[in-house]
């Protein structure tokens, strides 16, 4: 055979793998921001609910592929391979983040945490949302609520920022006042919840 450079090819394989993963992270920023852990063995995953019911976690697969023709393979450059990998990353990121949002939406819908009427993203909608979600407080300190993350289309975020810019000082103070009232209530709920985390006789 003609002399080959397998070590270099192996390194390139590792590089492509790392490149694909970094691209998926880039293209699925919400997913990338979440804490994640890997399943090292086994083929099934379960969790037990508070009612001690065992439920299986349905694992979903995400995949992508690219093809290189016989003619291409003789001349394709690394740069051209990376363009193909980019497309795969794009497809996998969509599948993964899409799956995540689908599952999340189903769970939210199930517990009824949906704001009726599907309003546009606004200060009002944020307060309505805050009313519905559970809030934790760092170090049990009322002044340190765990802030939430808004995931929305860039246009919706732009509109929200625009709204903020156009608000009068009075409107801003009113928003803050209403937010604080909700957080007071949330703090009470939090302390009640936390009070239940205890060992009893």
């Amino acid at each position, binding site marked *: 055979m003609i002399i080959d450079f397998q070590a270099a090819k192996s390194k390139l394989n590792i590089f492509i793998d*790392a490149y694909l993963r970094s691209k998926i992270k880039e293209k699925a920023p919400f997913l990338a921001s979440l804490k994640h852990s890997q399943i090292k*063995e086994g083929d*099934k995953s379960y969790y037990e609910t508070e009612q001690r019911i065992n439920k299986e976690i349905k694992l979903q697969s995400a995949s992508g592929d690219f093809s290189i023709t016989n003619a291409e393979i003789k001349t394709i450059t690394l740069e051209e391979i990376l363009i193909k990998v980019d497309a795969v990353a794009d497809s996998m990121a969509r599948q993964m983040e899409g799956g995540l949002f689908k599952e999340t939406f189903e769970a939210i819908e199930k517990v009824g945490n949906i704001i009726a009427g599907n309003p546009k993203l606004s200060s009002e909608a944020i307060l309505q949302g805050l009313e519905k979600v559970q809030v934790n407080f760092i170090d049990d300190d009322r002044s340190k609520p765990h802030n939430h993350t808004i995931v929305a289309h860039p246009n919706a975020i732009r509109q929200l920022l625009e709204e903020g810019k156009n608000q009068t000082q009075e409107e801003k103070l009113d928003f803050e006042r209403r937010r604080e009232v909700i957080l007071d209530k949330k703090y009470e709920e939090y302390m009640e*919840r936390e009070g239940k*985390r205890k060992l009893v006789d």
Partner: protein
Amino acid sequence: MKNTWKERVKESWLINFFKKRTKDSEPAPRESQNVFLERTIENWLMSVNELTYQFSFYQILLSEGYEIIYNSKHNAFEQGKDIVAKKGGNVFAYQLKGGDISNSVWRGGVKAECEELVEYPIINPAISRNTRHKSFLVTNGEIEDTVRLAIDSLNSDKWKENPLNTITKGQLLSRLIKISNDFTPKSPTDYRDFLDLYLTDGQGSLDIPKYTKFISEILQIDNEDVYREERKRNIATASIYTGYIISSFEKYNNHVATIQTLTVLSSYIFALVEKFNLKEKYWLGSYVVIRDKIKEASGMLETEIVDGGFDKMINSIFDGEIGSYRRSLAVSYLLTYKISQILDDDKDCLDIFTVKYFKSITGSLLAWGESALYAFILFFILSIKHEDNSDSYFFLESALKSLIDNNGRQGISGLFSPYFKIDDVIMNNLGLLEEPIEESFVGGSYLIKSIISLLVRHQKKELVSKYWREITYISQLSFKPSKAWQNFIWHCKEGGNTSVFPKQTQSWAELMKEEESWDNKNVPKLLQKYYSFLPYYLLVFPHRINDDNIRFLEDKTLGKK
């Protein structure tokens, strides 16, 4: 450090490979592979001492159908006999030596030992007192002609009734090659795996995934159609190959890696036994010698630590950083040995044991990952065994606190799960991994349930209550293989991962009831029977640590039930 012996091995393979190919001028990959293997074995045999090849010699005898009666630990009670075996109604006694036996070596002590070997009867309950035995002097070197003449002379006179036989390098080599050839690596990848393992640096850890892949091939774990006698030979062959592999570690007195390798081998033998329901006659002999070898290496580790090994171990400017991991790992192996000795009713378990001494060395324990917390648990069990006082709970509470601080709601990335080896953790913590570990371990723990269970068993309600709120934020993780035999496999494809959050409001009475009603049905049967192996198994397979195994280990160590 340059390993000239390794270079010699490579050189000798190349020479032989070249000779073979040019002589036959035909491609002969299979034969060439055997030449490689034979040269490797020869090189190994020439480079080891009698302590190292005794393990393999024992396995040769087993595979040849001998029943082993006695395997010495090289103490004063040997009476010239390192191994005593039976076959077909005959009894055989062996004295093992390393290297060439020259006249001066013969006169310097070997002769006296051979006199004991030949003349002293075997005192063993398995052999009637007047049974005559056949005596063998075994060496991995040669016996000089003058010594042969001396032996011949004794054989025709004083030892006429029970002459001394000899086994030298050539005979030993051909028997080793014969059994090694029982497993001929099927593919170049198998060969490469073996060579990688055999030519390893010798100073670090075993490459467990590579070793388990290799050993699974020899043991034919996935092959259902193997006769039981063949399984017995496969176990002996796997042990012999392991003997080659651990010689790299033994060269450096790297006892931790030796113990690690033999523990994995034992576990894979258990997998085979469990899967194919093998009777003891097919595997126990091999297992016993592996277990003895683990103990021997553990004893040597203990001696090294007691003799100031932690002060002498420094060999690089980086030991300020890496030394703490080295010490921590060594202490966890020592604690494991001590527990195993207690389980074996070994009176030597008390030789270095004082709570004060152990407290001094357990200062070296480092919570580098969840696996490291196992040593904290062992120390707790040991101190409870010897001195049940409030200090005993310090390490258990430290382990719990470490989990809460790292894996609890305030944690940043969490303690590495038991699936990560110390090597990976060191590399990651020092930023040396090409791809840093990005997983988060916050919010879950594989060991927390075991720790809580121990506290509940010892009625430490106040301690559990103090931490309960934070405990509720940590999901209790576990893995259960689909089949019992898979417990003994490094990682299994089939099985379920489970995550359980503790109840937010938990009744103490309920926790107590759970402990009181616990039974050992979830502990693998083989570990219940051969329980002195359990501490080693959990040390090397930390991802198999669970509350059931820990409860069982504690009960056995404390002599409960």
